[in-house]
């Protein structure tokens, strides 16, 4: 991880989202899909914590070489402040942080599932998978049309695509889960990647376990440091030998995890439970091709 004073090269709006492109070659060179950056807030406000964003784009080559893009929808003091930032301002950025998605070595057909800003890392992944000759199909979900992140880009990146919005303003009305089985079957997916709400990630997990499909999901948890120091960002992950679980750090041990190993019942607290969950000692999917 590097800490840099990064100049904002470009800002743009994409529906409900803001995108910031930074000049940060030290980070961009190393960045892989699933990793994130940590951005300092101005010291003269009430902010105490840095804010964390998935890397959406990291260019190593070409005219944009050394640049890094992240994307957010303004929804709190930190993202509101970032939404006001302008080109040529500088941000204090640490990255790349966390473990990236692993690329499948042997398998070919990849179904990528994203919701809301979860699309930011997923499209980055899509691009890298395509560059490695994989087939990529996409499911993109959101509350409404303007929260469907960059649908044009999504279409460009995928062989087949399903867009789902809660209010039906773009694509089908419903939830990502509703089209999951259909897309799995239609695309012949051999591997699944996902980023989005816990509810959706859990549905993906259940389905992949059922079908014994290898999967990786990027999760989010409230973070104080983002650097692996404080252990505030933990997620319960079942041990490989099934002997119990450990609270692993999303920021340093994740944010990408094997969804079959996440102890969903514990992590989701008393949120509505729609699915049965693995008990301690649950036999994990260890077929992941590393």
């Amino acid at each position: 991880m590097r800490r840099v004073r990064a100049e904002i090269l470009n800002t743009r709006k994409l529906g409900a989202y803001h995108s910031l492109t930074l000049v940060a070659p030290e980070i961009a060179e190393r960045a892989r899909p699933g990793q994130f950056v940590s951005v300092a807030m101005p010291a003269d406000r009430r902010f105490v914590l840095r804010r964390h964003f998935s890397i959406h784009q990291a260019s190593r080559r070409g005219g944009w070489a050394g640049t890094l893009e992240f994307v957010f929808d303004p929804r709190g003091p930190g993202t509101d402040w970032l939404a006001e930032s302008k080109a040529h301002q500088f941000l204090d950025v640490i990255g790349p942080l966390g473990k990236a998605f692993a690329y499948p070595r042997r398998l070919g057909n990849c179904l990528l599932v994203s919701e809301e800003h979860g699309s930011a890392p997923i499209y980055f992944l899509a691009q890298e998978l395509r560059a490695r000759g994989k087939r990529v199909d996409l499911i993109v979900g959101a509350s409404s049309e303007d929260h469907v992140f960059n649908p044009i880009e999504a279409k460009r990146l995928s062989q087949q695509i399903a867009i789902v919005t809660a209010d039906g303003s773009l694509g089908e009305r419903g939830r990502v889960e509703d089209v999951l089985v259909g897309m799995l079957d239609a695309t012949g997916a051999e591997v699944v990647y996902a980023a989005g709400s816990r509810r959706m990630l859990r549905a993906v997990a259940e389905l992949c376990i059922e079908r014994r499909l290898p999967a990786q999901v990027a999760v989010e948890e409230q973070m104080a440091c983002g650097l692996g120091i404080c252990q505030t960002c933990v997620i319960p992950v079942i041990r490989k030998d099934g002997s119990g679980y450990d609270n692993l750090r999303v920021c340093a041990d994740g944010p990408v995890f094997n969804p079959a190993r996440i102890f969903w019942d514990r992590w989701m607290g008393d949120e509505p439970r729609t699915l049965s969950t693995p008990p301690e000692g649950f036999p994990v999917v260890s077929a992941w091709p590393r």
Partner: protein
Amino acid sequence: MAAVRHSLAVDLEGVRFPLPVLAASGCFPAGREHAGLIDVHRLGGVVTRSLTYGPSKGAPTPRVAETPSGIVTSVGAQNAGVREFLVEELPRLAKTGVPVVASIAGSTMEEYLRVASALQSEPGIVALEVYLSARDREHDDLPFYARRDVMADVVGSVSRLSSYPVFAKLPAFVPDVVEAARACVRAGAHGLTLIDAVPAMAIDTRTLRPRLGSALGGLSGPAIKPIAVGAVFRVARALPDVPIMGVGGISTAEDAVEFLLAGAWAVQVGTAALVDPSAPAAIAQGVLGYLKERGFASPADLRHRLRLDPEALA
């Protein structure tokens, strides 16, 4: 002005730190992965996360919520246990030569003593810090600090058992922090660490839920600085010969100087170090700048420089 030899080293009655700024408990990166972000040689020392005897899974998530100029956290002492620390973490720390203060916790008096025993005669460790906000399973789950006699008993027993100098880490949340401090010193504490995070809570009015999984947590960060400075000031005046490490809301060199003027012998940086692991080093550097600019020779020099009007505290 005559040439003054400025030194940042501090001596807490035998416990020596090369710089007056330490990383506070729970806020120092233990892992290998942070090599690039910090230079331990620019740190006065490192206080470990509070160690329990066995591994502890800690509190439910979310574990952090941001509040005005502060954060409320509840990690619940998640740690791998003192043995794992001795095998995995301490050797790496000791190799760097940074002075290590081992923070110990427990849910019974016995656990404190077992942790303290396990840490005996380990190279690298220069002192123990006794975390007193842990809940006492034998006394209604109240924090140890809530009963002065229980607290003094823990501090005293650890001090007798251990060959290390012992710092008692007091919360400011006692009606008379001076009396609490005195009780710890009488029981055998070598020094005091003031203050711990302050009991607090934040609620999400949208979801109608506490913002932390454990509902209650501890407030830290700039918001609590005035509380911590006040506690250090009061205890330092009452017990001028007892070494105090000041902690709470320090994020700039000026903040650190405030604590040194209030009577702290050294300071620790918590929350600010989470957000920027190089903060303690930068703060130490800034303290040096302040000393030079004002013609003070050392951090200790500041301890008696606070100018008090005769009417103050009347």
